[in-house]
């Protein structure tokens, strides 16, 4: 007998991506560059977050034609984004057989209260989180993978660092608690008791946890790995730099040898200009993508 779409199968694909880099791409040429550089997967998009930020308007799921072309161009897994709560966009992506769906705050939310019921899908989902409570609420809805939200499209790693440190800090706190203290913690962080108990027993999230949102250099990627990320997403950081091939490759190498400063110093050499980047302090609350979702 063959069983499809089980928890093991969905979370398992995320486990296979660990120690790897998932890159945002908007066409076949970029997808091939990403695969050649050694990306473990690509995220098919119509616009990278930096352009979404600049151009404004409602950001939606990519045109299926864009996704189909990218699927044809590479053999590695292809991911695509849907708006928060937009379960029909997710149904469309599942019908197109994308390998992973990102229910993403980078796109304009379709529902301000409810996220997608991800248990209903055979395709695994990844969702963003800023803290442990948010991560566990997404897992409770069926997410098979978590990533920090960071602040996408800024080329500034400070928010991804904040979110990764927060999640790791809260896990350490839970691990040191006695079981009877977990009931109150469940209330404090607004997450299901059973998942908090599971985190306490495992000493980590029950799913893979990547870093995302503002990673622009090999050193940024290695920083996130040393802070405990299982891998990284790079959005605008590659194709908004002036030498995407070289930078993509360097970031892949940096995620593998994240704890070896000597190798990191070699691969960081002569990569050309990184994307320009934005100081988070200059963004108003309305301009921040990370506050989307709950």
């Amino acid at each position, binding site marked *: 007998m063959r069983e499809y779409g089980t928890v093991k199968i969905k979370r398992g694909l995320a486990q296979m991506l660990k120690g790897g880099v998932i890159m945002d791409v908007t066409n076949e040429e970029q997808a091939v560059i990403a695969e050649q550089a050694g990306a473990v997967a690509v995220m098919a998009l119509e616009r990278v977050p930096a352009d979404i930020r600049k151009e404004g308007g409602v950001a939606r799921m990519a045109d299926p034609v864009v996704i189909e072309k990218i699927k044809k161009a590479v053999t590695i897994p292809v991911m695509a984004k849907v708006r928060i709560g937009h379960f029909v966009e997710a149904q469309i992506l599942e019908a197109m057989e994308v390998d992973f769906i990102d229910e993403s705050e980078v796109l304009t939310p379709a529902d301000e209260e409810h996220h997608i019921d991800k248990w209903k899908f055979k395709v695994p989902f990844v969702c963003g989180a800023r803290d442990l409570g948010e991560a566990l609420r997404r897992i409770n809805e069926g997410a098979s993978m978590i990533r920090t939200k960071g602040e996408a499209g800024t080329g500034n790693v400070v928010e991804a660092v904040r979110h990764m440190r927060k999640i790791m800090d809260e896990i350490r706190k839970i691990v040191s608690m006695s079981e009877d203290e977990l009931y109150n913690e469940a209330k404090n962080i607004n997450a299901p008791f059973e998942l908090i108990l599971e985190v306490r027993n495992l000493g980590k999230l029950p799913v893979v946890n990547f870093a995302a949102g503002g990673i622009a250099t090999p050193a940024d990627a290695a920083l996130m790995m040393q802070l405990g990320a299982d891998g990284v997403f790079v959005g605008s950081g590659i194709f908004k730099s002036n030498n995407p091939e070289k930078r993509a490759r360097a970031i892949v190498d940096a995620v*593998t040898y994240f704890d070896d400063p000597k190798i990191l110093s070699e691969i960081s050499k002569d990569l050309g200009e990184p994307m320009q980047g934005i100081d988070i302090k200059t963004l108003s609350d309305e301009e921040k993508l990370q506050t989307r979702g709950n």
Partner: protein
Amino acid sequence: MQVGVLSLQGSFIEHKNMLNKIPGVNGLEVKKKDDLKKIDGLIIPGGESTTIGKLLERFDLLNLLKNMISDGFPVFGTCAGFILLSKRIYQENDQPLLGIFDITIKRNAFGTQINSMEIDLKIKNFEFPYKAIFIRAPVVKEIGDSVEVLAEVDEGPVFIKQGNVLGASFHPELTDDLRIHQMFVDIINKRR
């Protein structure tokens, strides 16, 4: 016994944890040339074969490892690791390979992720079936005489042995069933 797990990318921690559950076995992460000197056998984990192959090539591990395996060094590849150990890939020819198994392997042979699945697999000499986890898994398409098939599904062979080298399309590292890791440890023991 020290058993290495190639730790460039993929499910290497899962494999290490499985190895450490076997009495007398110590799982070691292998990332650099020097690490290869410390081990009695090596597991190449699941992950993306294109990524792991490129990293093997870029960090000068590919040829070194190829020579070691050709000299009888025991290796076990799962999913991506299985692909990397193969000589030929069906309708593809541009990714770095270790080229040990005399087979042609087809990547993503069942389709995309929604076709990934769990199968109760019959394995040669196993008393009861093995719950095998297939994720974007490969299948063997053509096979040479020196290769022994240990398990197969309708699409083709999914678990093979050639000398001291094992290859599985599925992921024993995602289960609690130690039988396949034990089988590999037995191969290493026999050689020592």
